[in-house]
């Protein structure tokens, strides 16, 4: 896929993502968090990734609800609990925006060129590359366990969580097996034998990349200003949760 966002330098995109991350961590105010969340939408549409972004949001819905419910259970006020859940959504959205618009190769190059040791950048990019494989594995494991009569949507909340144990264990074990095999294959092919590597592609920042970085710093500066100086109105939810403990 090609778009102005895809063509941005991965380092600039990563700084932008970190900007969203830092800003989201500053606030628990729902309005501020919704602004941080929705401000990403034009960029996502420009990257022609709207559908994939919506899919990733749908995938995060379970955790969104989980975070909200757990906070409510442990006596956080409803408005703050909702804030924590929206914060998760804003951070998840920022990172999925980054990974949807940055190829694993670009990511590896960016890490290498900010002098991250090759073994670490390779590990990171391999992990990113393995995500689609893991997704296929996860679907196969789900199919295999459903074929053995497992009904994931059956039972109360705790039972539903327990239903995922037969999914997670085979997935983790196959991931460990795969990583051991990958490590052996890499060692057999003399991984790390050459200390100094020479990259074919050298990333060069363009004016638009500097602009994105500048805008990120300005955005984070604005967020800091709002956090310290501007009293934000918060939503009022007129529901009283009874004390459980």
């Amino acid at each position, binding site marked *: 896929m090609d778009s102005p966002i895809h063509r941005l330098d991965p380092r600039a995109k990563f700084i932008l993502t970190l900007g969203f991350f830092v800003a989201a961590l500053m606030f628990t105010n729902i309005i501020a968090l919704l602004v941080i969340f929705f401000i990403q939408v034009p960029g996502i549409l420009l990257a022609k990734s709207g559908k994939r972004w919506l899919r990733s949001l749908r995938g995060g819905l379970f955790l969104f609800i989980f975070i909200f419910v757990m906070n409510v259970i442990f006596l956080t006020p409803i408005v703050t609990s909702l804030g924590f859940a929206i914060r998760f959504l804003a951070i998840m959205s920022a990172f999925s925006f980054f990974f949807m618009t940055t190829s694993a190769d670009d990511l590896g190059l960016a890490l290498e060129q900010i002098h991250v040791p090759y073994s670490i950048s390779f590990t990171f990019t391999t992990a990113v590359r393995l995500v689609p494989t893991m997704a296929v594995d996860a679907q196969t*494991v789900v199919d295999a366990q459903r074929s053995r009569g497992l009904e994931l949507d059956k039972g109360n909340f705790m039972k539903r969580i327990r239903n995922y144990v*037969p999914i997670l264990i085979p997935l983790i074990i196959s991931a460990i097996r795969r990583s051991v095999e990958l490590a052996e294959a890499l060692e057999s092919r003399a991984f790390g034998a050459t200390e100094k590597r020479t990259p074919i592609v050298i990333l060069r920042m363009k004016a638009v990349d500097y602009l994105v970085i500048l805008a990120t710093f300005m955005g984070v500066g604005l967020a800091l200003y709002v956090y310290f100086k501007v009293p934000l109105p918060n939503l009022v939810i007129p529901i009283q949760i009874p004390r459980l403990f």
Partner: protein
Amino acid sequence: MISTENVSFHYTAGSEVLQNVNLEIKDGEFVAIMGENGAGKTTLVKMFNGLLKPSEGAVLVDGVNTREKSVAQLSRDVGLIFQNPDHQLFAETVAEELAFSLRNFGFKEDTIQKRVTSLLTTLDLKRYEKSPPFVLSGGERKRVALAAVLAWDPKHVVMDEPTIGQDYLQKDHLRNFIVQIISQGKTVVIVTHDVEFVAECKPRVVLLSRGKIIADGPSAQILTNEQVVEQASLVMPQIASLMKNLKNLNPPPNIIDAYSARRFLSGKLKGELEARAPAQRR
């Protein structure tokens, strides 16, 4: 009986994995579904227990449309054994692994214990009863996966690539085991590339290529048909190739030909020779 009526399937619109597949598998039948990689074999068998629903057409299991039942309900009758056992093993012990599906299907605890013990003995897994399944060898893990499905005694057993990673002895055990479960009246469907295994088991062969059935019939007839075998990116069994090569040497026609190879594979020739042997001895 499992039947498919004009079944077509696509994962993404425009790229048909299966096209107009019509197939009828009778109760107690032994069928091998073969074909090249990506021919749609696994997709087809995943429809038998409702994991996938056809984009067009219908799949009927014992007369019931798979759209009308859940995977759990269909799996009670159709046991699907996946290619890689690591995709299903998770329990702390082999015995627990076998009991898992029985608990899902609501069997009573005493029945579960009886069935687990019986299967551990039948599949030579008794000594691993308390071992974690992850520490077993590849062949043993495959046996555990097989036992875990056979535990609930499904009417139809579907195996996806059961011979991959198995040595000759294990294949031999598998063949005997298949014969045993067919004798219990179960339908057995295997998905495989292993022509030698199929040649020895002599099931009905359904050849798939690019989502279509290109041949359907007895293994002796299909696997000696060079044209369809080649179309499905397979090779003829060694014995059939040998017969063909011998034929190319132009021996006298009454000595050896592809017809004899077919009869040999179907067991008829062997039967005739055995029938003739006592007479000769007399």
